[in-house]
């Protein structure tokens, strides 16, 4: 389909003979199964269970949620494998975990403990200020953040099988996620309307391989699933991102920094399924208790979305 077949490998699966198996396809397909769902940040097995019972389609295991990382400052790294294993044992849904941008050894560790998805994430302190991980070297899938089409396609060229907006994590302020989703979709529409002979120049400007630009031109979407992330705190925020074209939503600090996490989580899940039903979302937004306080983007000193371009 597109020039990403380098990932395909021949695998001899349990003596059934040699067959062609394309890990990259299988990894993109797992993301397809997550669509229309909510992926929640959790820091303990108990929180993971609350998330699963509330209807999360996957959980992101991390030591501290972004709001606390932001508050604590200092270097933020991959979580302790023991903590991740505890969460893997607690739930039956897919478990994701974050590694630092460019830290391929943290990614190797996460693959070794059979994580379902690795988030090479700007929420943690970057380990490399130039290079991202060569994600094609891995069998487990990667999701990466992006602020615009160029970043998204560069991550896909490196082997990411799922994209999310960066947003601004740990703020409870959705403005950046909205900006990133709109920017990405505006550029996709622009690429769609170009003449075929203009795609080479577009690829040059976006600093991405031309075959990926051709894919966007023909299909009007990214070649992988695209979720919203960063600052989603309410059912209305989640529905807003879905109406803007997200295929699902990550909710980080918004749930476990709020007054009633279980109820808020369940409401966000329903708002994502019925994201155009204002009457239902009105009901879902009622009596949710206190939302996370949040910080406005102008008040932030550290812009995590600026990490890794």
């Amino acid at each position: 389909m597109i020039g990403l077949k380098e990932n395909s490998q021949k695998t001899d699966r349990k003596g059934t003979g040699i067959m062609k198996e394309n890990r990259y396809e299988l990894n993109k397909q797992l993301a397809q199964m997550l669509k229309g769902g909510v992926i929640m940040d959790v820091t303990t097995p108990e929180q993971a269970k609350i998330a699963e019972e509330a209807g999360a389609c996957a959980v992101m295991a991390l030591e501290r949620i972004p709001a606390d990382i932001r508050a604590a400052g200092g270097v933020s790294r991959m979580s302790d494998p023991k903590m991740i294993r505890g969460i893997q044992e607690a739930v039956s849904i897919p478990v994701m975990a974050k590694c630092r941008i460019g830290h391929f050894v943290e990614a190797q560790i996460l693959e070794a403990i059979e994580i379902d998805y690795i988030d090479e994430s700007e929420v943690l302190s970057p380990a490399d200020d130039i290079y991202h991980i060569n994600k094609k070297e891995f069998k487990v899938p990667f999701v990466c953040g992006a602020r615009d089409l160029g970043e998204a396609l560069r991550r896909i060229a490196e082997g990411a099988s799922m994209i999310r907006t960066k947003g601004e994590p740990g703020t409870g302020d959705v403005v950046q996620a909205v900006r990133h989703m709109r920017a990405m979709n505006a550029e996709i529409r622009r690429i769609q309307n170009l003449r075929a002979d203009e795609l080479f120049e577009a690829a040059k400007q976006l600093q991405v391989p031309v075959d990926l630009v051709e894919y966007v031109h023909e299909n009007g979407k990214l070649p992988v699933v695209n979720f919203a992330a960063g600052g989603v705190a309410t059912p209305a925020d989640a529905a807003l991102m879905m109406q803007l074209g997200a295929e699902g939503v990550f909710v980080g600090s918004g749930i476990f920094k709020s007054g009633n996490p279980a109820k808020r989580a369940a409401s966000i899940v329903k708002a994502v399924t019925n994201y155009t039903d204002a009457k239902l979302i009105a009901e879902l937004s009622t009596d949710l208790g206190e939302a996370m306080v949040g910080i406005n983007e102008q008040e932030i000193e550290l812009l995590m979305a600026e990490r890794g371009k």
Partner: protein
Amino acid sequence: MTIAILAMQGAFLEHGQMLDRLGVEHFEIRKKEDLDRSFDGLILPGGESTVMRKLLIELDIYDILKEKIEDGLPVFGTCAGLILLADQVEDGVQCFGTMNILAKRNAYGRQLGSFYTEDEMKGLGKIPMTFIRAPYIADVYGNAETLAVVDGKVVAARQENQLATAFHPELNDDTSVHEYFVQMIKESKTQ
């Protein structure tokens, strides 16, 4: 003919695309009011069965669909959809429980255990099969019938109006399983 596709969560769009290729009309079920439309068949897609089960119940869709399936509505479940139909679920909770199969959830392990293969399905010959964190059928009993076996594990079964596959026919180009389901609907109408 119109087929309803359960759209609580997961890969429901892909089923719609397969039906488009077969020229079959379809629509999505996201809330109770969507059930007011009439439909001749139902697809339960892949995704997370825990999420779908919860939303089915909380959005008041569960009872109506269960009754329709018990009354003979042709239904086709893939992966999570198979779990929703299963009478018994190992490491999980029963949902509709209308099909005489024992489903084992996450039977091949985590994402590293996901795989693609090509194998025989009864009446269809060799077809592509994509397994994503898939279940398999650990037991088939009563009037349920095995349709496909991969590596000694049952991965597709049928019981009268119900069809279930552990793999995802909607993720490959081959439309034969969807054609098989459309045929099931046609047969149910002539009965």
